[in-house]
């Protein structure tokens, strides 16, 4: 009875703090969301489809220049891969160019340079919005499809045979598609494509199968002895991109892969007739590390070639040889601007005019004038006029066009370039009301957080000052784009200072030699964490620890890590059994998973045999993908059951309960981490004992370890491989989203959960308030920086992703992890 009263009194005194903190937390989250909604607007898209009016139909010449179209999209085909001698192995293509069968360009692809937004651009001619780049990650999303938007595909499907058959018996164009299944996501599988074969780009390490999967369809479809079964064929090759991701632009596999692509191009060229147009292009480029997504020259410079057998496709006077240009080019161009430079979306109106089709409504491209060389003057003027009308409509709405029917071609083109430039700038219309509202409310809420913290927790003031100054430092750093890209360096910088001062200035009881010993252990751990993975976008090193550690050793370390989690419970049989059970399942699952997804030779035999034994013990098959899913679900179920069990079993000993629950969560985090990162948890465990607990250590280590797990502030490093553990085909997007968060933020969650909070519940509040204060101060500066840099060149590649990470971090870390996990589950 007495105990209950005490308990309820205690609860009351703390609930007096928890309500204001929840309110402050919610206000902060709301203001961050306000700002980001204003910052990531969804674009207005013109509905409906473009078509020729009767007048236009009567006016125009309406003769198709080509009958058939072949799209060969080679993912991440940077322009120098096509044209620059030391980087290029497209020998046949070079020959064709020098003979005058190829128009070659360097195409500027608008950032974000990831596949989905680029495909949207290539097919609709529109400029992408940043949300597309995020949707590229969220694989299953219906808002990103183009089924009901005007696009090249729609126009081909609906209008291709329209004109030739005089309005009677309209049969859709036969479109075939082979390659990256992003296309199928965009256009669906039910309508446009008569035949298709999608390839999943999930396993980046494979660059042979993905391409063979496309190439095997070539013989069937390019058979000169048979009638053609298609009008428009799309081949999307992924291998080159995968090589880039794996080994960078100078990978040893790059030139052979280009040779393979070149053979395919030659083969298709040989087997097509004079009425076929072949378009070879990259959807985007890559930087020298093989990554893409940003706006550097390498990433935005894709190659673009128009190839046709037609005699005089490139008129004599305009051939490269006339201007002393022979492929391959030997002179290096640091901007990757080889041959003529066009915008990638210019492809859309160009193709449409070559096939006499209406230009898609949302197109921002301008016809590439060189390709009109085979047109008569009146034809040329007609198509340019069509392009101009379409752009005018997009830019000015229904405003009456100033009639300029007698404009010269050059005048039309220059007018169109002006409209194009304006449209591209207009592509991002920020919602300024929300931006200002968000900025003000985040400022006000942060002030409240700090005042509340300062006022109510006097003992916490020194921590408050330090976290606030870290927030200030980080906040100021967001104004430099390179500091955002290399944020891990700043965290390391602060961590080194904090830990070295902490070790030597703290008033703990260690003697000098004890302090030196503590310093050595702490810094060795930190240095190992730091050296484990690459982070940031500027440098990528071959010999980081996760790369050079031998596989045998790695898996032994993984085992040791999991065993080390059992040891602290050796005096409590119940807890020991729980943790051992989970550790064993986790270890088996990680090996099972690696056997299914990775190379067999990365796992020592004795471990794979062990797993085979375990699996046969519970009636599972090592080769079955279904069993992998079942196995993961088994883990989740046991994990959940144990959390609930402990809640009841240890209800009277909260300190002990917290201790065990933390370890269960740690094993869950290990399950969601990449195998090569698991030993880091062992280092974390050691580090945890060496350093004093507290909100500053939590703050520093959660960010440091997030970056040193391979995380960066770009969307390119969002890791999806562990987001599908235990997920079958008919998955729930929220579950995948949750697992994705966990697997990317695993180390940060660890530090938020694992740092031993003292028995005093007050510490949970100060910890949360400190972290809210940090997020708030950081947020003020970040939002301000995003606002000021909204027209910066790097807005898509640096500031917007950073803002996304920030939103995810504050939602996920402060709200879900800190508040729900630490506050409720433990």
């Amino acid at each position, binding site marked *: 009875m007495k105990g209950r009263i005490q308990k309820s009194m205690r609860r009351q005194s703390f609930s007096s703090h928890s309500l204001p903190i929840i309110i402050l937390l919610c206000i902060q989250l709301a203001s961050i969301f306000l700002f980001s909604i204003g910052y990531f607007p969804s674009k207005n898209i013109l509905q409906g489809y473009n078509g020729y009016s009767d007048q236009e139909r009567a006016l125009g010449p309406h003769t198709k220049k080509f009958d058939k179209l072949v799209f060969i999209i080679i993912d991440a085909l940077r322009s120098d891969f096509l044209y620059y001698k030391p980087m290029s192995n497209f020998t046949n293509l070079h020959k064709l160019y020098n003979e005058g069968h190829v128009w070659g360009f360097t195409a500027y692809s608008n950032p974000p340079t990831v596949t989905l937004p680029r495909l949207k651009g290539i097919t609709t001619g529109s400029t992408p919005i940043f949300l597309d780049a995020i949707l590229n990650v969220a694989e299953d999303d219906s808002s990103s499809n183009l089924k009901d938007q005007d696009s090249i595909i729609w126009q081909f499907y609906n209008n291709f045979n329209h004109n030739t058959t005089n309005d009677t018996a309209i049969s859709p164009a036969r479109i075939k598609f082979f390659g990256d299944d992003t296309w199928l996501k965009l256009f669906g599988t039910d309508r446009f494509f008569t035949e298709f074969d999608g390839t999943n780009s999930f396993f980046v390490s494979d660059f042979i199968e993905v391409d063979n999967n496309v190439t095997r369809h070539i013989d069937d479809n390019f058979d000169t002895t048979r009638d053609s079964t298609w009008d428009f064929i799309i081949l999307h090759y992924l291998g080159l991109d995968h090589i880039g991701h794996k080994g960078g632009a100078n990978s040893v596999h790059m030139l052979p892969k280009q040779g393979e692509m070149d053979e395919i191009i030659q083969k298709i060229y040989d087997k097509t007739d004079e009425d076929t147009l072949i378009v070879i292009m990259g959807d985007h480029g890559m930087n020298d590390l093989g990554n893409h997504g940003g706006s550097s020259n390498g990433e935005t410079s894709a190659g673009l070639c128009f190839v046709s057998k037609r005699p005089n496709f490139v008129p004599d006077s305009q051939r490269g040889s006339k201007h002393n240009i022979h492929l391959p080019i030997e002179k290096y161009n640091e901007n990757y601007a080889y041959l003529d430079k066009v915008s990638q979306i210019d492809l859309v109106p160009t193709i449409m005019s070559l096939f006499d089709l209406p230009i898609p409504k949302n197109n921002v491209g301008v016809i590439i004038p060189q390709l009109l060389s085979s047109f008569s003057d009146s034809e040329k003027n007609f198509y340019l006029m069509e392009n101009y009308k379409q752009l005018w409509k997009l830019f000015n709405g229904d405003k009456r066009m100033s009639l300029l029917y007698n404009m010269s071609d050059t005048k039309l083109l220059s007018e169109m370039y002006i409209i194009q430039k304006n449209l591209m700038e207009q592509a991002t219309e920020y919602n300024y009301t929300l931006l200002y509202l968000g900025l003000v409310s985040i400022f006000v809420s942060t002030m409240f957080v700090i005042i509340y913290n300062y006022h109510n927790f006097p003992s916490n003031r020194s921590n408050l000052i330090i976290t606030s100054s870290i927030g200030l430092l980080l906040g100021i750093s967001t104004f430099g784009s*390179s*500091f955002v890209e290399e944020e891990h360096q700043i965290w390391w*910088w602060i961590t*080194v*200072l904090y830990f070295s001062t902490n070790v030597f200035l703290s008033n703990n009881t260690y003697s*000098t030699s004890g302090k030196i010993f503590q310093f050595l252990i702490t810094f060795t751990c930190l*240095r190992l964490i*730091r050296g484990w993975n690459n982070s*940031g976008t500027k440098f990528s*090193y071959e010999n980081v620890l996760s790369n050079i550690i031998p596989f045998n050793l790695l898996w032994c370390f993984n085992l040791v890590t999991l065993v080390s989690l059992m040891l602290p419970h050796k005096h409590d049989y119940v807890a020991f059994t729980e943790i051992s059970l989970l550790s064993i399942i986790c270890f088996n699952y990680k090996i099972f998973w690696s056997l299914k997804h990775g190379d067999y030779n990365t796992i020592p035999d004795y471990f794979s045999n062990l797993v085979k034994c375990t699996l046969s013990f519970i009636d599972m098959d090592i080769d079955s993908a279904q069993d992998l899913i079942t196995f993961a679900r088994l883990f989740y179920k046991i994990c959940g059951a144990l959390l609930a069990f402990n809640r009841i079993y240890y209800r009277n000993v909260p300190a002990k309960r917290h201790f065990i629950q933390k370890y269960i969560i740690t094993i869950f985090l290990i399950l969601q981490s990449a195998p090569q990162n698991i030993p880091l948890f062992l280092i974390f465990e050691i580090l945890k004992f060496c350093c004093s607990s507290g909100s500053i250590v939590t703050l520093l280590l959660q960010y440091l370890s997030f970056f040193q797990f391979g995380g960066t502030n770009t969307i390119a490093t969002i890791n999806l491989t562990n987001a599908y553990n235990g997920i079958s085909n008919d998955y729930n997007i929220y579950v995948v989203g949750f697992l994705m968060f966990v697997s990317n933020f695993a180390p940060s969650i660890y530090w938020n959960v694992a740092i031993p909070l003292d028995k005093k519940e007050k510490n949970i509040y100060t910890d949360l308030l400190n972290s809210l204060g940090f997020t708030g101060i950081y947020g003020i500066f970040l939002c301000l920086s995003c606002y000021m840099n909204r027209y910066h060149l790097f807005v898509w590649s640096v500031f917007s992703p950073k803002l996304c990470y920030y939103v995810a971090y504050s939602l996920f870390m402060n709200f879900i992890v800190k508040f729900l996990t630490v506050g409720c589950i433990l």
Partner: protein
Amino acid sequence: MSSVQNTNSSNISATNASNAKKRKVKKSVTFSDYDTVITPVTNGSHNGRNKSTSSSIEKRPDGSHYPVVVRKSISTVPFHLIPLVYYYMKTYDIYTLFYLTIPTQVFYLLFQFRKNTIFAGKKILKPNWALVIVSLVFAVPLLSCVATIIFILAGAPLLSLSYLKQTFLLSLHCCLLSYPAIYSVFNCDFKVGIFKKYFVAIAFGCWLSCFVIPLDWDREWQNWPIPLVIGGYLGAFVGYAVGAYI
């Protein structure tokens, strides 16, 4: 009129300063870092040699040491470091920098730092030539091995041997910069904590200079270890210049 006031005020400030000095001296007797480091050792031979050169540290009757202070004087400012940094920023020649730094640091120690290090409230020791040479030839290289380990633990790149060599050169420079402090620590039988701040200043300079590394300016001076060398020199300059006042 005003000049009179000025002189008055300057007099006052001077007396204030002298008072402060006195107070500080007193304070340092009670709160100095004495005997916080290592238990006293009776290194007889060393003391004996020191006595023979009449430069040993006198002990109080109760066996504790007299305080050691660095005089607040413009002559402790290591002006020679500025042209050295300037030279380095022009050439990035880390080897030549050695040949320039070694003699100037020895000169600085002998004629500037030593002359401002006051023992027992009044005494300036004569140069202990053996120690000058020993600390330069043995202590500095040995300590720079330790410093290399510290640099690596604090994040120095370990990507290849050439990086390691650069890190070693960097720590050699840092130890050379702390050479006057090393000499003084030896000369005080390790008993004096006031020289810690010079090491801290150099380390802090190196730490602070690191913030230029992530910038995407792609300049040569962002390469390892150039910013740290410059930061270390500037940190040493500031440290030796204001060390006496802290």
